[in-house]
């Protein structure tokens, strides 16, 4: 009798399943959430991209199925929308593996978007490391049109693509965590990945990085482009930065995590060509902010190391030390100019800095009251910014001098 008393509840437990027990195949994994404005005042247009697990797995019959299911509908917010999603999806909608949140540019430019975004964090499945991507078009269109050819499963694309920031610096690291940080501290601008799947009308040639998404004149089947960043002030988008500007902004931050930026600079001797180099930041910037006076003074020293990658002009910058010094000066000047331009734009146009300089300014104060009274964001617009770039050559590749090119041959 005792044994039966024990076995019955146990078997009920196991057979009926417990409250939070959900078999893995009963769940639908949303990999991307898209948010757009809806006509309704208290609603938001939500797009879910749900991965199809069977795609890419042999012997499951999933070879012919589509990689993901994309559904769009209007709901009060993107958390409760999952119940609505069950009208079409037969599985429990799960956000545990959500990689990215795509937000349409039109939407993020409104205060409404901020409210919907911040309200979502309450849910336990929404993780703070979800990437925020701002799409030029509607998020629903972006998700629909984004068909990467290399990655079979949709989550992989976002996983790998957003991971590229660490290498190239063309897009910033933009996760929800940082988004909330900026909103809550009310300092500094937030940079989000800027992307599109639509071709822009104003194609241009911007060397290696001076583009906004859609401007790169690329041929190929996938039209998705992630480059540059959307600049958000207090959670609302107010402007864009090109890929080049994004890189500059990252370099102006005290600690940039971007590891390798391949950049080119005009050859000082031969204006036709550009010198290619690999740019890294070996140390943190030295940033000094003087807040005693009415207009704050900002002194930034940026240490950079350069590895020459290619010298198409054939000039000797390697063994000729004079030329080397010249190139170094040239690079320093170019960079300084670029950085100053960016700072100017942020001061005059956006009136907020995306360089996280408020953290440096904070050090000058003892208590929060003093700091808040000072109002760094307001003072920044008139701040006197001094930028110093220190370039060091650290490598020249595995070639010494330039190849001997006959002047005559070149003339032909």
């Amino acid at each position, binding site marked *: 009798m005792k044994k039966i008393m024990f076995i019955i509840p146990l078997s009920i437990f196991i057979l009926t399943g417990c409250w939070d027990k959900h*078999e*893995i*195949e009963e769940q639908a994994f949303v990999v991307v959430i898209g948010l757009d404005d809806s006509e309704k005042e208290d609603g938001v247009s939500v797009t879910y991209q749900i991965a199809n697990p069977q795609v890419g*797995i042999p012997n499951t019959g999933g070879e012919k199925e589509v990689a993901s299911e994309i559904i769009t509908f209007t709901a009060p917010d993107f958390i409760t929308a999952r119940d609505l999603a069950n009208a079409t999806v037969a599985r429990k909608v799960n956000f545990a593996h959500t990689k990215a949140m795509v937000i349409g540019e039109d939407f993020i430019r409104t205060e409404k978007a901020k409210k919907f975004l911040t309200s979502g964090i309450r849910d336990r499945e929404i993780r703070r490391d979800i990437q925020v991507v701002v799409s030029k078009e509607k998020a629903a269109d972006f998700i629909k049109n984004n068909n990467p050819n290399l990655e079979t499963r949709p989550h992989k694309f976002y996983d790998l693509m957003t991971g590229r920031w660490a290498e190239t610096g063309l897009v910033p690291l933009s996760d929800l965590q940082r988004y909330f940080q900026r909103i809550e501290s009310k300092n500094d601008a937030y940079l989000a990945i800027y992307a599109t799947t639509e071709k822009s009308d104003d194609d241009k040639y911007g060397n290696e990085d001076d583009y906004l998404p859609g401007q790169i004149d690329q041929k190929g089947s996938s039209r998705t482009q992630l480059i540059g960043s959307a600049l958000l002030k207090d959670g609302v988008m107010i402007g864009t930065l090109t890929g080049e500007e994004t890189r500059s902004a990252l370099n102006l931050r005290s600690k940039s995590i971007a590891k390798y930026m391949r950049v080119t600079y005009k050859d000082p001797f031969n204006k036709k060509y550009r010198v290619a180099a690999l740019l890294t930041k070996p140390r943190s910037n030295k940033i000094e902010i003087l807040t005693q006076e009415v207009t704050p003074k900002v002194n930034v020293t940026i240490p950079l190391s350069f590895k020459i990658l290619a010298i198409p002009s054939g000039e000797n910058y390697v063994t000729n030390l004079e030329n080397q010094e010249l190139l170094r000066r040239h690079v320093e000047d170019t960079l300084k100019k670029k950085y100053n331009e960016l700072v100017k734009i942020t001061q005059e146009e956006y009136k907020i800095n995306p360089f996280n300089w408020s953290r440096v300014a904070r050090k000058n104060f003892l208590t929060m009251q003093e700091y808040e009274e000072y109002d760094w964001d307001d003072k920044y617009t008139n701040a006197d910014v001094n930028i110093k770039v220190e370039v060091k050559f650290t490598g020249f590749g595995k070639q010494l001098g330039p190849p001997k090119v006959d002047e005559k041959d070149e003339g032909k």
Partner: protein
Amino acid sequence: MNIKKLFSNRKKFEVTRNSSKEEKIKDNLEHNISTLSSIFESSINSDFVIRQCDVLSLEKKASTFFLNGLVDPKEIEEFIINALTNSEENVNKNMDIEQLVNDIIPIKNIKAVSMISECVQGLNNGQTLLLVEGIENGFLLDTTKIEHRGVETPQNELVIKGSNEGFVESVAINKALIRKQLRYEKLVSDNVELHNRAADSVSLMYVNDLVDKDVVEDVKKRLRDIDVDTIQNIALLEQYLEERPYSLVPTILYTERPDRVVSYMLEGHVVILAENSPACLVVPVTFWSFFHTAEDNYQRWAYGNFIRIIRLLCFLIAIVTPSFYVAVTTFHIEMLPTDLALAIAAKRETIPFPVIVEVLIMEVAFEILREAGIRVPSPIGPTIGIVGTLILGQAAVEANIISPIMVIVVAITGLSSFAIPDISFSFMIRVIRFGFLLSAAIFGLFGIVICLTLSVAYLTTLHSFGVPFLSPKTPYNPSSKDLIFRRTIRKQRIRPTNINPQDSTRK
């Protein structure tokens, strides 16, 4: 009521059993012969041999008794019968009779006894009894020769580096194997007679100037309290000695390696040896003894610790893997890498059972395979492998009964449980695994944690012959810290003091 009955039965039984054995040896030879004949049922027991002869030198009648099969017939013929019947010269009639027997019979060990019960025990142990007319003493002559296996490699505790002698089913040989490895005058072998029908004797071996005397007394007391017909071997003795018979955790170490035994004796442990067992028991032991093997110390420091790490890993894997799989796939899906989550989901889509049932099917199938593998007669042994791999590895997956990842989970679990050196421990892990599995099915990781914590807490309450099971870790006692990892041999200078050795430094 029942208990009372039991007691009364036992008393009656004891009375009948001991009536003739209590007697002393009489000076009447005929009387003695008939007593012994009746004890050994000589009318139907063909192994009981009585050989009568006249001892010329004493001019007296004498009888020798022995049990066929336990004695060396050649020895009896050559050294006893011959000696008794032939020798007539040089006998000093005035000498004590004991001295005389000693002189006459050229055999290694002669013991004079006066009680019938002693005679019976001697005969049962393969000695030859000599009774002489008119003398109230019997002589037990050591002619024991019991057949047993030769010394072979141990069956379960194999090592790559180190001696490969294992115990055999003879106490004498086993003692020899131990003494061979530890030639030390304080190594004693203490015989304890059990109070039971067959009057088994059990040997305790320990190093007298190291051992905790209280433990020896404790062991002796427990041995004396055993009250059954006979203890056939050490595996049964183990179950009579342990404190918690229902517990899953073994508290007595069963080992078949003399070198391991010696190393334990040098730490102050007591070793129990009994006939017919190719192994011996070590008490008191701690958790760590079950975790260690002989090889850990034979291999150099780095290698020894490496295999310890592997074993620790196996220990964890064997207990937790299936339950962890269940917990992660049904409760904590976010813990899986996205690709793995999708892969598992894809494969599980066509499986008709919940994960827990899937795991149970495979675990039970594996246990069946394991049990069958031991019981199967060796000529058809290879079929087990074929059936196992085919059914578990392939057919079940193709038939959509289980998912392929399940095969990996069960295989790694099974493999890890094989790497646990001690059989009792391995059993323990195999059993508690199911407990973990069920609680993981109910509460996910919370369930696993509950089981883990309860297991640890339970282990801390155990004692083995008065020594806390997790000492010297907790309660802390100074030791050489040979627990999960070991130090270099040179640094293992202190004996574990939780065992209470009389001398705590090794010198």
